[in-house]
C-alpha cells in the first residue's frame, strides 16, 4: 500500500484516539448581559392583569401561567391553569417543559412583581424565550380584576369601559370576592408540548 496513505491512516487513528479520551462538555445557551440589559430597559416583558384575564376568559391555549410563590400560597389561591414553580425550584428540570414550551407565552406571577421579575431574569439568562411577567402580581389582580373600583364620575369614557370589562371579568372569576376555593384547575394539569431544542430545522 502507498506510504502516504499509511501515514494519513496513522494520523486519523491518532485523532480518533484523542477523541475517544476527550472529556464530554456541555454548554448551556445563554443570553449576553448586554442583551439582557436591553430587554430590562423596555417594558415589553410585562403583561397587564387585564391581558391575563382576557387570556383566561378566552382559555387561550398559547399561554402558560407560572406561579412562583410557595406551594402553600398556591394551594390557597392561584389563577386557573397555573403551574406552581416555587422560587427554589425555578431551575428544577422537571418544570422546564412547562416554562420553556414551543410557541407558548409563559406568564410569571407572584404576589407583587418582585419574585416574578427575579424568575424572569433567571429564565432569560437561560435564554428561554416568550417569558412575561404579570405586572403588579396577584395584588394587582385582586385590585383590578376581582374588586375593580368604579372610576370617578369625571373620568373619561375609557375608564368606564375598562371598568365594565373588569366587572365582567370579576364575575367570570367568581364575582366580587377573593375566592379562596381549593383550586379546581390543579387537577387537570395543562398538556405540555415538549420543547425541541432550538436546533435549526434541517433535513434533506
Amino acid at each position, binding site marked *: 500500500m502507498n506510504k502516504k*496513505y499509511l501515514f*494519513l491512516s496513522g494520523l486519523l487513528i491518532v485523532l480518533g484516539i484523542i477523541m475517544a479520551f476527550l472529556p464530554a462538555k456541555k454548554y448551556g445557551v445563554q443570553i449576553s448581559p448586554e442583551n439582557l440589559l436591553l430587554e430590562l430597559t423596555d417594558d415589553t416583558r410585562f403583561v397587564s392583569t387585564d391581558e391575563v384575564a382576557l387570556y383566561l376568559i378566552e382559555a387561550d391555549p398559547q399561554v402558560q401561567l407560572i406561579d412562583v410563590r410557595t406551594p402553600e400560597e398556591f394551594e390557597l389561591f392561584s389563577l386557573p391553569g397555573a403551574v406552581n414553580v416555587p422560587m427554589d425550584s425555578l431551575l428544577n428540570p422537571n418544570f422546564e417543559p412547562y416554562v420553556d414550551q414551543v410557541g407558548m407565552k409563559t406568564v410569571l406571577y407572584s404576589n407583587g412583581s418582585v419574585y416574578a421579575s427575579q424568575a424572569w431574569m433567571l429564565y432569560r439568562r437561560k435564554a428561554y424565550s416568550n417569558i412575561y411577567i404579570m405586572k403588579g402580581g396577584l395584588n394587582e389582580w385582586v385590585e383590578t380584576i376581582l374588586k375593580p373600583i368604579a372610576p370617578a364620575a369625571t373620568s373619561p369614557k375609557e375608564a368606564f369601559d375598562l371598568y365594565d370589562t373588569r366587572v365582567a371579568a370579576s364575575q367570570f372569576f367568581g364575582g366580587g370576592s377573593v375566592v379562596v376555593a381549593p383550586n379546581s384547575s390543579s387537577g387537570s394539569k395543562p398538556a405540555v408540548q415538549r420543547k425541541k431544542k432550538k*436546533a*435549526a*430545522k*434541517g*433535513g*434533506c
Partner: protein
Amino acid sequence: MAKSINTMKNKPSKYMNPYLAGVLLGLVLLAAFYFTGRGLGASGAVKSTLASVVTSVAPDHAANSHFYEHYTKQDENPIKAWLVFEIIGALFGALISGTIAGRLKLKVEHSPKISSKTRLFAAAIGGLLFGLGSQLGRGCTSGAALSGMAVLSTAGFISMLAIFGTAYMFAYFVRKLWI
C-alpha cells in the same frame, strides 16, 4: 511538456483524489453546520420547489393535504428555503467544476450493453423511487445519511445502511444497466 498541455486541452482532466474530495466535502459540511446548524441536503429543495408549484397552482388542494401543511401555514413562498438556495449554489459549483475540468457535454451516459432509451427509462424509474423514498425516509443520501452520520445521529446510520444495503442486494439483478 507541450504534449501534456495538449492532452489536457483535448481530454477532460482526471477526477480529484477521492480522499481529498472527501475531506473537502467534509469541510463544506462542517461549514454548513458551523454557520447554520444544519447539514447539506438535496431532496428537500426539490420538495420545497414542488410545494411552491402546488401551493400556487392548486392552493385548495395543498391546503387539504397534510403533506403540504408545513408550507401552506407559512406566509412565505416555500421556494424561499435554505436548501433551495443551497442547491442553486450547488448547480453553479458543479458547473464551475465541470467547466474547469472540461467535462461539459450534453450526453446520455450508459453501459454499452443498453441503449440510451433504456438508460433514460431506468433513470426516470430511479428518480421516481428516490423521490418517493426520500420523503418516507426524511431525507436522501446527503440530508439523511451524510449529514446524519456527521452528527452521529442514529437515523443517519440507519438510512445509510438501508440505502446502500438495498442497492447491493439489487445490484445483481440490474447489472446489465451498468457493466
